[in-house]
């Protein structure tokens, strides 16, 4: 993020929110697209890839808003920043692992994404409110997809339940990193741009708890002291060891010829 001297605290706060959201979408979209061609069955492969593509679309739309606020264009923002200038949470950076991990991450992240965009439909930042309304239908499918799979695999067989529980144990503490607050939290709330991470987390906790309980899955007990470095820091530009290799791979083609037309 280029913090221009001319940026007011207000616009810095908005840009920070947009970067956090866009970077989450871009990185998780890229991660989930790694399943393309490798999905468990053809139909699910297509569905998961298609949702990954939606995420890249959301990232692009958010970068476009940043562009209209004086930042560089979407491609430049996506492909030329280094790790330190990314504001995604750690959760989205982790490799895809087995499908249980990816599916659980998809459930926990997309639920938060759907609630966040739902809150943003009332944002005082008009382009963001418009985008939030536009993606509502897409996200309805994403959460439906996640909820049905979680319910199915939580209850199908002993093996599927054990695997989903193990994935939940691993994913849940990481997912809390989604709600890491920035320094601009109060400015965003006061300006009516976004009602804040705290409220988002509260609503999210209620919703995921209900779905997990129905699926015979238990939310793990969180050890707060071990949580800080594992889950948090992403919003301040501190990342896991997995982000830089992802960025290297993602920008490989772009770096060869940044001016190429696609």
């Amino acid at each position, binding site marked *: 993020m280029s913090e221009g001297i001319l940026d007011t605290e207000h616009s810095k706060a908005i840009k920070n929110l947009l970067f956090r959201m866009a970077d989450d979408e871009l990185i998780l979209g890229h991660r989930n697209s790694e399943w393309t061609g490798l999905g468990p069955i053809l*139909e699910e492969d297509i569905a998961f890839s298609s949702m990954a593509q939606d995420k890249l679309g959301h990232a692009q739309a958010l970068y476009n808003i940043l562009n209209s606020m004086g930042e560089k264009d979407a491609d430049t923002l996506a492909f030329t920043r280094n790790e330190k200038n990314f504001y995604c949470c750690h959760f989205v950076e982790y490799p895809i692992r087995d499908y249980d991990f990816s599916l659980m991450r998809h459930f926990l992240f997309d639920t938060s994404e759907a609630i966040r965009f739902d809150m943003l439909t009332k944002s005082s930042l008009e382009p963001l409110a418009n985008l939030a309304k536009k993606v509502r239908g897409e996200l309805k499918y994403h959460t439906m997809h996640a909820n049905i*799979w979680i319910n199915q695999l939580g209850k199908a067989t002993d093996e599927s339940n054990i695997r989903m529980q193990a994935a939940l144990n691993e994913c849940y503490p990481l997912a809390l990193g989604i709600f890491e607050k920035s320094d601009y939290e109060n400015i965003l709330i006061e300006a009516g741009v976004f009602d804040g991470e705290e409220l988002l987390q509260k609503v999210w906790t209620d919703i995921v708890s209900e779905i997990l309980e129905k699926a015979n899955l238990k939310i793990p007990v969180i050890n707060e002291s071990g949580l800080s470095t594992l889950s948090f820091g992403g919003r301040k530009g501190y990342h896991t060891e997995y982000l830089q290799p992802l960025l290297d791979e993602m920008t490989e083609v772009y770096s060869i010829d940044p001016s190429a037309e696609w």
Partner: protein
Amino acid sequence: MKSDSQKNSTIKSLDPRVTRADIPNDEKLTIETPPLDQWQTYEVFHQIKKGDHHTHVGSVHAANPELAFLMAKEQYGRRGKCVNIWVVKTADVFTVDYDYADMYENNSEKMYKEAGGYKVMEKINKYKKEHKKEIEELKK
């Protein structure tokens, strides 16, 4: 003349014509299929706009109807217009095979059975669509 044991194995009905037909009652109407080595298939029907017929577009593999719907939405409902999707277990679709195609063979000769009105309606609608502007002009 059939033996008694043969007669016992035919369908007895209140309708004497059915009884006389000597239909063996061990004949199964359902077709035995070997157990599946993968998920069953569901047939997918999509609807382009509210009120239209649902049209068959293909099939998907899935473990249950909910998952079949999830898959169908992405396979057949993510491009072009769509407002609704049905999924139906393929095994629930009853049909007979093409050996019976001759049942329909003489259809084209039976003009008297055709509902010609529908065809005319199609023509009228097509004309209306093609001449939308002129018709609107006339209405003014």
